[in-house]
């Protein structure tokens, strides 16, 4: 699975431009599903037909990044954020454009406490505006440029949020032998700017049960803001975040399955943050939904860290859901 993860995290897929990622995912799963298509928002939807309940799994294919808003006379680029960026993680960092151009993020003079996005710029090594315009344009999107690192039990990369979720779904598809249910695996677009892809995908699928797979923060680093989720303590079953209160039936289902199959799990309350379940559960006249979270340190930085055990437990939990009768839905 490490190679699958490396392949996905090192891809280019900022919000709104997920094609490279969804194309790649397609090659991994096309022969294992009955149907595979991309919709109007760029969601990749893969279906394994069945006559039972309609279940929608959703992991988002997009990652946070930056968008060029201006090119100055000296060839420096001004930019805005795509999704939630932590300014401090940008300083001295590198970004990569679709065409491979690399840039460094610098800042104007001034105190860190007064730092705002418009005081930053991207340096792509161009000496003049003309030179810069040959390489990039206003409106181009770039992502963090950082390689995948295998620390053994733990893995570090940019865009673990949510390529690790995509990898979990791909792996579940690969291992799934049979399910009675009508399964939709959605690799959604534009989650980072407001769960947009999941919203329209859920409308067209109209599922009986919705499960998002995404990362969540942990509270297990020195002087961490309080959070009772830790790396290595298992798949996180989300109770609540700002976008959704997990339907009690869904939460209970996941806990029951985890206990029955002895899948390590932990309960999660995330104070700020949302997932595709936030959009899915409000579709049409409502969809019972929940989220399986992969615990992740340093979320929305270029070095997000996950634990392979947790990843494996998330895959197991998804497979358990696919095998269950799901009578209560």
């Amino acid at each position, binding site marked *: 699975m490490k190679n699958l993860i490396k392949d996905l995290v090192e891809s280019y897929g900022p919000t709104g431009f997920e094609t490279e990622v969804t194309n790649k995912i397609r090659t991994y799963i096309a022969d294992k599903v009955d149907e595979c298509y991309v919709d109007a928002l760029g969601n990749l939807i893969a279906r394994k037909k069945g006559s039972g309940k309609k279940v929608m799994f959703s992991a988002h294919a997009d990652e946070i990044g930056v968008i060029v808003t201006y090119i100055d006379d000296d060839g420096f680029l001004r930019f805005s954020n795509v999704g939630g960026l932590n300014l401090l993680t940008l300083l001295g960092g590198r970004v990569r454009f679709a065409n491979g151009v690399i840039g460094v993020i610098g800042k104007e003079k001034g105190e860190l406490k007064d730092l705002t996005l418009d005081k930053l710029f991207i340096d792509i090594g161009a000496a003049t505006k003309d030179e810069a315009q040959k390489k990039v344009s206003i409106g181009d999107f770039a992502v963090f440029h950082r390689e995948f690192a295998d620390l053994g039990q733990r893995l570090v990369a940019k865009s673990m949020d949510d390529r690790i979720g995509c990898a979990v779904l791909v792996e579940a598809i690969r291992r799934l032998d049979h399910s009675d249910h009508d399964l939709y695996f959605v690799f959604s677009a534009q989650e980072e700017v407001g769960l947009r892809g999941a919203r329209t995908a859920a409308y067209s699928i109209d599922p009986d049960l919705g499960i998002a797979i995404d990362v969540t923060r942990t509270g297990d680093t020195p002087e961490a803001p309080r959070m*009772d989720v830790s790396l290595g303590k298992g798949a996180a079953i989300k*109770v609540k975040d700002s976008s959704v209160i997990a339907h009690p039936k869904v939460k209970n289902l996941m806990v029951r399955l985890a206990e029955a199959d002895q899948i390590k799990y932990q*309960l*999660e*309350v995330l104070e700020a943050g949302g997932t595709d379940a936030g959009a899915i559960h*409000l579709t049409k*006249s409502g*969809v019972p939904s929940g989220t399986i979270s992969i615990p992740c340190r340093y979320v929305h930085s270029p070095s997000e860290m996950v634990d392979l055990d947790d990843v494996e437990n998330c895959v197991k939990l998804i497979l358990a859901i696919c095998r269950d009768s799901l009578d209560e839905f």
Partner: protein
Amino acid sequence: MDVKEILANLSEGTGVSGYEHGIADYLEQNCPWADEIRRDKLGNLIMVKRARPAAEQPSRPKVMLAAHMDEIGLIVTKIEDEGFLRFSAVGGIDQRVLLAQEVIVHGKAELPGVIGAKPPHVQAPAERNEAVPMEDLYIDVGYDSKEQLADLVNVGDLATINRKVVRLAGSLMAGKAMDDRAGVAVMLECLKALANMNHIADVYAVATVQEEVGVRGATTSTFGIVPDIGIALDVGHGDMPSVPEHLTISLGNGPGIALGPHVHPNLHKRLVQIAKDWNISYTLEPATRPGGTDAFAIQITQAGIPTALLSIPLRYMHTPVETLNYEDVRKTARLLAQFISELDQEFVEGLKCF
């Protein structure tokens, strides 16, 4: 049951956003005026009262009423090794009202608890001038270790303030969750009144879920009903010191009748007219933003729903001592029942014509 009793029972019941079934159960057992009661996928409780007299006509207008049954509360985020519970809020809570409150933690058992306050003797002088942030608060349930609580409480369990209703002078009463159990009480009183009135519309009285975390229940329940008219019943800011008069509605003066982008002008006019015709006192409640109540979600469902909003005046909103005048609940219910009873097909059809 008198409206005072209904209000007390509803206020003292537990139903934090996402876990409203206790209130839904109570309503199912205490609403004999509905022809049909059902729950939808997110737990919204839909009480349907069909047109009276029973009509064969192919299309009876649908009027949806919405009052949210969820209340704000606390959610356990961590159990400390020494047995104290850390928590965060479900819905908007002013952290300053939590200090020294008694709570009930709804785990596998109902545990009484106290939100501890540092005694003044050990506080530094500067501390006393600052509000205690929520992350520094904790619930003490009287246990000494995390292990002792292992079978009793989990991360994600909910807690509510332990508050019995207080009868104040006159017709005033105070309690927790009057936002929006008062609106739910209005719906019940309205259905009771309609039992003896003729009305051409089918009435869908919906006790919605999860309003406090983003009007979520209203979003999905409205989609499932697609009413011709939607009326949200919620609370509005009652008169109190330190708030400019023009931003509040007085207690005892009947409902606030809202106007603004979220309210269909014909519905507003009709409600005001009926209040005048039947001598029901009211206050106009202008708003520049459509948000803050279920009306926000109802209005933009599918191809759009003509929407209105009635507000029960309430002091000290989102604190455990929310105070209202129960006569306002009665008056709001009367206005609503009269409105429903006087609906005619022409008026309903005219709502799409601008």
